[in-house]
């Protein structure tokens, strides 16, 4: 069955959702892991994404694109929430009553291997080098040293607005670079 057929079937039969889950869970987990480089956070993000997708399975509509895009859309939103709040939302997990299993060392190793973690770490380490110097410095101060934009502005002798723009552009560019790494 295609993803689209499975999603339609899952609307009335939850077992079809399990097949969809089996088809995409590894890849979603790798998607998360490559972005957060933390297997535990990636596992939590996968669990919440799956729970949200299950709750919304009847809403999925055909927009002429592969239905996996629907799953990745939910995944991207959960990732964005997680990054913004520095915590993984677990509301859908709670609503469905999913007992999320603990992550064991074997799974951690398997996730790293599946996500080609070493290669991705190298790509992540190299990505900042491809930013403009001012943007790279602003991102490092914001992300690594956790400075506010006012402090970044003071260090770079620029306005706070300019510092914010540099951070924003730098992060957006980093995101684009990492998106290019599947």
């Amino acid at each position, binding site marked *: *069955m295609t993803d689209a*057929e499975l999603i*339609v*079937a*899952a*609307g*009335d*039969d*939850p*077992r*079809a*959702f*399990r*097949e969809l*889950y*089996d088809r995409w*869970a*590894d890849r979603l*987990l790798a998607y998360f892991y490559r972005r957060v480089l933390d297997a535990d956070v990636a*596992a939590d993000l*996968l*669990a919440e994404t*799956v*729970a949200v997708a*299950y*709750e*919304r399975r*009847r*809403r*999925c*509509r055909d*927009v002429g*694109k592969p*239905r996996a*895009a*629907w799953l990745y*859309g*939910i995944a991207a*939103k959960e990732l964005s929430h997680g990054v913004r709040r520095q915590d993984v939302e677990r509301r859908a997990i*709670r*609503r*469905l*009553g*999913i*007992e*999320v*299993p603990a*992550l*064991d060392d*074997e*799974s951690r190793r*398997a*996730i790293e291997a*599946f996500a080609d973690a070493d290669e991705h770490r190298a790509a992540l380490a190299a990505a900042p080098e491809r930013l403009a110097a001012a943007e790279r410095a602003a991102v490092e101060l914001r992300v690594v040293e956790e400075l506010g934009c006012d402090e970044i502005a003071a260090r770079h002798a620029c306005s706070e607005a300019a510092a914010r723009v540099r951070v924003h552009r730098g992060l957006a560019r980093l995101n684009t670079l990492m998106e290019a790494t599947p």
Partner: protein
Amino acid sequence: MSEIPFVNRLGDALDEAIATPQRAKARRPRRRRFGGLAVAVFLLGAGGVTVAEILDDPERLATAEVACYSEATLEPGLVSVQSGEGRSPTAVCADVLRTDAALVACARKEGFVSVFPGPPDTCERLGLKPLPAGYDDARRKVARLRANVDRVVRSADCIPPEVLARRLQRVLDESGWRGWRAVVDRGEGPCGWLGIPVGMRADRRELGISGGPPRSLERILSGAGVALVPASGERCYDVAGLRRLTRRRLAPTRRRIVVTVDAGPLPQYEQMEPPARQQRFDEGCAVVDEVYADYPKPGRIVVRVKIRVKRA
């Protein structure tokens, strides 16, 4: 199967959560479920048990689901899945398939029952085994357990999960379910919920009791709560109007109604049901997204209503 053990365990946890429809939510799965479904996706937990043990275990098969096939073939897409609920599998499928034709039930090594139209040798022709001796007795035993469990669960509006577990353990002990345990396994609500056979985990010999809302609240949410979602698309409401409608419709819950408004477009790739509701939303009207019981802290139950509107 994934090579990442966590992925398989999370999938099983998801199956288990889905299989227990105790949550009081506006959009609940219908009891009867249809769909083109690859039979291979049946995941009724064969882990650690041999095929012979499953095929020869009438109790286990009697608690499993029943797949009704419209043709005598194992091709996916010709099947609908029913909860056995203690009835004869052929009677269940005769209702579903709306047929008077002869039906035959076979045991599947995955741990469930399949029913096909055809003569008595259909199981053998398909390479399957007939149901084991003792299946009908086991089925009737499940039906009796179901009646006894229902009687206990319905004896009060709210029985705390731990209390319900103790009462159901007595039911198990007194009705010949030797080795079975009633366990409290999950859920947020203050009241114990259990459905038979979906709460039966034959592979572990457990009845899984979860927390949920009081029965009276569940009744309202699955009636007025469910109806509120499509009703919000019957005319164009603004947020204030929808808040009023919500409070009026859900007043019988006598619970605090917490309304949240989510302003913004619907996520890409999603649509609302019924289509009239989607149309109202597209026109800028406010619609109800979901209605459910929530438990912000121990001893406190609120009804949450999510309203969605394109622009605040």
